[in-house]
């Protein structure tokens, strides 16, 4: 897997870059800034929390800390998800907030040029536009960059 294939389509001089973790959800590619990621883990033993919203899969114990796990399939009404050996949880730490998301597969860690992220959310997106920071076209791939701080903040309110 190539790490930093900086596309030089528009700018000859490389601009500000950001490192992201790319993952799959229901066939589409998403990215989250690596600064927001604490770690990537195999699916741990999840304890269900009764009366929690349905997309909260439960809580896990991560080295003595209790962390809620959000099922993005359910959160964004994506097609059903089956946990398989490729399923991962991405543990996020944004400001003081700790939470984890379940993803189908983590594919790679790459550098994106910030200039290349198009903040246009008019394009078709299977998920709620509010938590999308923008999208990036790379060759024939389309990567949707998420702003998960917004997602978590919405959970608190």
């Amino acid at each position, binding site marked *: 897997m190539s790490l930093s294939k900086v596309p030089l389509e528009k700018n000859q001089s490389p601009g500000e870059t950001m490192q992201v973790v790319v993952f799959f959800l229901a066939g589409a590619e998403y990215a989250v800034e690596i600064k927001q990621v604490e770690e990537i883990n195999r699916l741990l033993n999840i*304890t269900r*929390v*009764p*009366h929690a919203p349905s997309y909260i899969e439960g*809580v896990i114990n991560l080295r*003595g800390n*209790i*962390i809620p796990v959000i099922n993005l399939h359910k959160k964004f009404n994506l097609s059903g998800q089956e946990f398989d050996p490729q399923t991962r949880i991405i543990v996020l730490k944004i400001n003081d907030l700790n939470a984890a998301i379940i993803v189908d597969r983590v594919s790679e860690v790459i550098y994106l040029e910030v200039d290349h992220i198009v903040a246009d959310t008019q394009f078709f997106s299977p998920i709620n536009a509010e938590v999308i920071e923008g999208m990036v076209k790379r060759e024939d791939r389309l990567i949707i960059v998420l702003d998960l701080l917004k997602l978590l903040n919405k959970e*608190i309110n």
Partner: protein
Amino acid sequence: MELDMNKYLDVFLEESREHIRTLNSRLLQLEKNPQETSGLNEIFRSAHTLKGMSSTMGFIALADLTHHMENLLAELKEGKMQVTSRAIDILFACIDRLQIMIDDIAGGKKPHEDNADLIHALETIRSAQAETAAGTTQHAEAVVLTVDDAPDTRAHGMIYNDYDITILKEALSRGFNVQYLNIGVAPNSMMKAVRVFMVFKALEESGEVIKTNPSAQELDEGKFDDQFELIYICEGDLTKALARINQISEVKLLGNHAVDPSELTVTEPVIKAGPQSSAGAAEVKKNEPDMVAPVRHTVRVDIEKLDLLMNLVGELVMHKGRLEQIGVLYKMEELNNAIEQIDRITSDLQSVVMKVRMVPIEQVFNRFPRMVRDLAKELDKEVDFYMEGKETELDRTVIDEIGDPLLHLLRNAIDHGLELPQQRLSLQKKRQGQLYLRARHEGNHVFIEVEDDGAGINPDKVRERAIESGLLGIREAEQLSDEEIIKLVFESGFSTAEVVTDISGRGVGMDVVKSKIEALSGEIIVNSKPGYGSLFKIKLPLTLAIIQAMMVTVQSETYAIPLTSVDETTMISARDIKVIQGQEFITLRGSILPLLRLNRLVELPETDQTTDEIYVVVVHKGSKQVGLVVDTLIGQQEIVIKSLGKILDGIPGIAGAIIARDGSVCLILDVATLF
């Protein structure tokens, strides 16, 4: 001079709050006993210290107000003025203002500055009473340097080691000016460490301090009497540096001379305890006999760090459990022995961490005497207020939460419990209402009591009110005993305007008090006898971080139920269950107990397993008892509560989580919100 005051701000805030507490409590004593003026010395000293600290820190308004307070206090102290209730009122008002200003400073705001009203009041009362005011202002100028100009030849306790001597000789050989300086600080100077800091700063503009006596660390902590010595190396002329020192207020250069190379011999440390230095120290102590309170060494620690420590200890315990399993699995005796040691250490560690989180309830209690006094005065009542067991320790988290409920109970007692003096006399009671606040340990709990000898709660009025508000039917109300009726004051919606005059407070009901205490896993009960007063008894767990819990399972899930909610556990037969209108019941020792299936409460599907033996955990929510049907009882366990975090905060029925021995997460049920 630019000086980084932030370093000292915390110290300043902490110390000034301490002085405000002293002022408040001593002034209350004085008010009770105006003839007993010995307390005035301490009041005066606290005010004086506050003034000194404030001006050092540059809080002029604070210093100014305390300065005027001091003037009044000086006259009271010297008997030039009588201690009147007017004077005390004004002083209390000043203390309140100081508190506001200090809170402002703590909050990063510019402190309240306009104190002209209070200063005017202070001056008026002074000029009204004291014609002999001449000379008293001198007192305000007490912050003058009174250190005797000690002769330069005074033997000094500078002790050199080999290293120092090498440096000094090197400096001398290079032609640097090596000076011995003896610097005096006014003995009554506040925050000596700041003075030292300023001296060092002044010197280090053009040279270097290479050695001090006492040590730099002791100086930094203000641990010296009225002077200190240092060796200073600079290039060329000293005069500028010395002039800078003499510009610092409350600091004076007592003497200086060039260091004579012949002085430079290694001195044996024994000399430190020699007659010269110790005699000097003793002298100082004699002058200020009451200043030598034993210094307690404390560190202020962020509560989050303690939580983290607690988490780590919890994890250690968990991993110890895994080691134990390995030891058993492979039958390794040596490992088991080692684990036993670790076991002891971890449980000690756990209890130490718990103790670190404990603080005396004094912190909460201390604000009450003032409140009681003010409220009594406002209501024209006379109150003798007693506090017992201030040293009782409670977990920090409980301390933070318990203040408001107690405040409310005390207000109630004064406002509605205690009668007016005339009324009391006609009832053959002591003129002063007796109000008690007590705290004590009992086993794993702390009991706090608020007792008054006032009018008590009138059950008939409560009964009336309960019927009016529809809380009880007429027949029901009449069947209940007086004791049961009195408990109704804790029901929500009970305290409305009409009852307020009799039992409840100002808009905040007793139900709030009760729910707050229950939120702390505590209980509150009331005993009251009309005409004789009321006793409110609060029972609190020592800590909220570790609790006893009953572990149960339902299907594949394990839950913890806090033992404070559990009355008993029992096993019943399926045939004993009766169904009335879809609700399951059993009869337990003659009384009807509604049953709730835990699997339904935690949204688990029904199973069609049929066993005849059914486990029931009898829990209570307020006065209501319910039997929770569970699959199995694991037993009682001490658990460390963890929060589910912001995202899952406030989910009904769940109070938090614990990490089980195997590392999985189990949820703690919150009985109060479960059903």
